[in-house]
């Protein structure tokens, strides 16, 4: 029989605040991958970069006692792993899909190795931001103004990426490289350099997203703790049809599903959690089907050279 279900125990304000926290790691990873894909590269190693960021960030934060130094280390760790991907795919012309998958497997194994002494250790606490009276506004205050700094940093990164892609000259060049790398090369743009930079940025964001999990959200180190967040981030980029604000919307939507699922479980609702856990992927599959109909491809603005290897001629 169904257990007693008490929906009144769910507090919408707490739910909304938890949603932003749950969404932040996938948002960070997704916005990084969005830039990578806009440059025409498909890096399936997001999960690996996140978990590497999670352990490097955790280890540095524990040994230095400073969570922010840990986050910087996570950025470096994620970017470092991404640069291996860049070397393999951009210079040694390895297949992007295979290399990305290998990167995920490598990251999971490597992080388990690094993290051997860190299980059960508590990381230094990351203080919450204090916005003064803003935090005391009823309803809005707890939802929007009582988070850790990284939540706001992720929003700034989304806005920055949006501005960069839409208005800056460098962003235009990045989109051009992703849209038609042969044409960009013919115009004298350095396709590889642009792509390597984008890949490194994607890795840095992925690493930061991973550190958010191990330092703030959980906060603890467990092997394989990203548990598919990287794949959700990848799905999110497609779901967002390569637009930064839609990625934000999607991340909060997916974050909402995760939070809701936990809350419903706590409230004693007996719907198998697997159904809710499936939801982000189902949505992504639907979006992918719509995109691959071809007619919608342009309106959804998939980068023209996405995943295609670039060989400089002449």
């Amino acid at each position, binding site marked *: 029989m169904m257990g007693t279900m008490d929906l009144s125990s769910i507090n919408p304000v707490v739910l909304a605040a938890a949603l932003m926290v749950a969404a932040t790691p996938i948002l960070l990873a997704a916005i990084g991958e969005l830039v990578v894909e806009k440059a025409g590269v498909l890096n399936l190693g997001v999960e690996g970069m996140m978990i590497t960021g999670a352990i490097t960030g955790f280890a540095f934060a524990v040994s230095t006692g400073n969570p922010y130094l840990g986050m910087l280390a996570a950025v470096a760790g994620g970017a470092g792993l991404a640069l291996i991907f860049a070397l393999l795919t951009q210079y040694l012309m390895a297949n992007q899909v295979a290399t990305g998958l290998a990167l995920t497997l490598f990251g999971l194994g490597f992080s388990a190795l690094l993290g051997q002494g860190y299980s059960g250790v508590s990381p230094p606490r990351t203080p919450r931001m204090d916005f003064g009276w803003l935090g005391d506004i009823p309803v809005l205050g707890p939802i929007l103004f009582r988070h850790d700094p990284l939540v706001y940093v992720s929003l700034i990164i989304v806005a920055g990426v949006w501005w960069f892609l839409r208005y800056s*000259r460098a962003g235009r060049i990045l989109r051009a490289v992703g849209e*038609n790398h042969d044409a960009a090369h013919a115009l004298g743009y350095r396709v590889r350099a642009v792509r390597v930079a984008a890949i490194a940025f994607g890795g840095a964001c992925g690493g930061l997203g991973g550190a958010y999990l191990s330092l703030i959200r959980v906060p603890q180190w467990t092997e394989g703790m990203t548990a598919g967040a990287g794949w959700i981030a990848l799905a999110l980029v497609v779901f967002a049809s390569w637009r930064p604000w839609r990625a934000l919307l999607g991340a909060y939507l997916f974050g909402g599903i995760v939070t809701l699922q936990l809350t419903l479980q706590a409230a004693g609702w007996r719907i198998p959690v697997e159904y809710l856990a499936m939801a982000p992927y189902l949505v992504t599959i639907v979006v992918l089907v719509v995109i691959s109909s071809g007619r919608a491809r342009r309106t959804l603005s998939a980068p*023209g050279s996405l995943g295609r290897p670039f060989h400089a001629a002449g």
Partner: protein
Amino acid sequence: MTTPLLAIEGLTKTYPGVIANQDVSFTIGEGEIHALLGENGAGKSTLVKAIYGLIRPDAGRMLWRGAPYAPAAPHEARATGVAMVFQHFSLFEAMDVAENVALGMDNPPPIRQLAANIAQVSTDYGLPLDPHRLVGDLSAGERQRVEIIRCLLQNPQLLIMDEPTSVLTPQEVEILFQTLRKLRGEGRSILYISHKLDEIRALCETATILRRGALVASCDPREKSARELAEMMVGTALQPPERAGRTEGEVLLQVTGLNLRAPSAFGTSLKDVSLSVRAGEILGIGGVAGNGQDELLAALSGEMRSAHQAITVKGEPVGRSGPNTRRALGLLCAPEERLGHAAAPDMSLTENALLTGAWREKLVRGGFVDWARARAFAEKVIQRFDVRTPGPDVAARALSGGNLQKFVIGREIMQRPQVLVVNQPTWGVDAAAAAAIRQALMDLAQGGAAVVLISQDLDELLTVADRFCALNAGRLSAPRPVAGLSMEQVGLMLGGAGDMEVAADTAAETLAQTRSGAVHAEA
């Protein structure tokens, strides 16, 4: 003597196994339209890439107004005053005109300002263009305008144009030539690369001719005939295609009211297309690229299915049949894109021969490939069509464009088709190979096959085809006999919708008259 704008002295560039340019020297004067002529692989592209800073020559030097000039990258070339319009447009379909122009500039002004500049230049030079439209929605002629305007905004002294007219209608070519003459009037120089000798004779005052990487002649093209120029390019006397008297038989291919939705966003849907081709006849279909040529070929080959009765071969409906059923009936096709569509790039010529020849040449027995027969078939094609390759085991990718084209056309012709549909059979193929392919098509028709020739090369259509019709935005005009058709009429048939209707109406009238005449004659 005045200092030339650009002097090239002893330029040499070698790639592993190939000498792309060998000791090439020539000069381009101020305010001169200079033609660069040569067959495929003669080294034209390498030469202009060196001028534009995309590659570095191994030896030799260049002088710009007497001063040493050695651009290490395109932006250095642009800073000096060299601009280039590419053969395959270097445009970004998902971005708008202004953004595309900005990407080609080193220090673009803000987009708003740039849009105004584009509007200004486009009116100054008679090249209408809306800066806010998405490039993916533009026609080939409009896309070229984007490229030209991108160059003009940088105020170049030397404009390099690589095969600029291959995708334009005659009217668009005329607009382009007016623009180029206007530019020359302003004292700018143009380096003009083309296969089309008549254009060069109409436009250029100096020509440099390359053969196998070396300079073979410099001349004034206005003093030479197109034939003399072609022979200098090829190095031997050319045999123009010839055809003995023709006999027309029964209708072999009939298309009636064919409607087909385009498979992709940038494709063109076919609207109510009807045509019929008789045995011994070549039907030429002209039209600017992107007006439904690929879709028409796909519909005829069986890659795209249609209503079953819409296409019949020898009276048999095949609209819903796949390519192999159609091949069995004798309908064979050779698509435009050689690598990836007509041939699998990384497979050997034997394997490629097998791909379409398996059924008619009986290269597969009991489910197993008969490699000996497949190889023999490939060798037969190589020998009959003079494909220059070490042997049938070479990958298709390794062949030059012209040789591979001879192979894929030959592969279909050797299967004795009753109906052959070819799209752009001589695109990017040098003069000698083009002549051989055209001759083979005419011989095939002579032997009693029906041939549909889809091409953007009007000269080719008018020399080879018996009847001509134009494909415009997915609609096919009524056919007109090629004999007595003027270039202007052809242009109207190819051109805008308004002109199109007039031409189509006249054509329909002519056709109706011919038909009623025929009926009377029969009666």
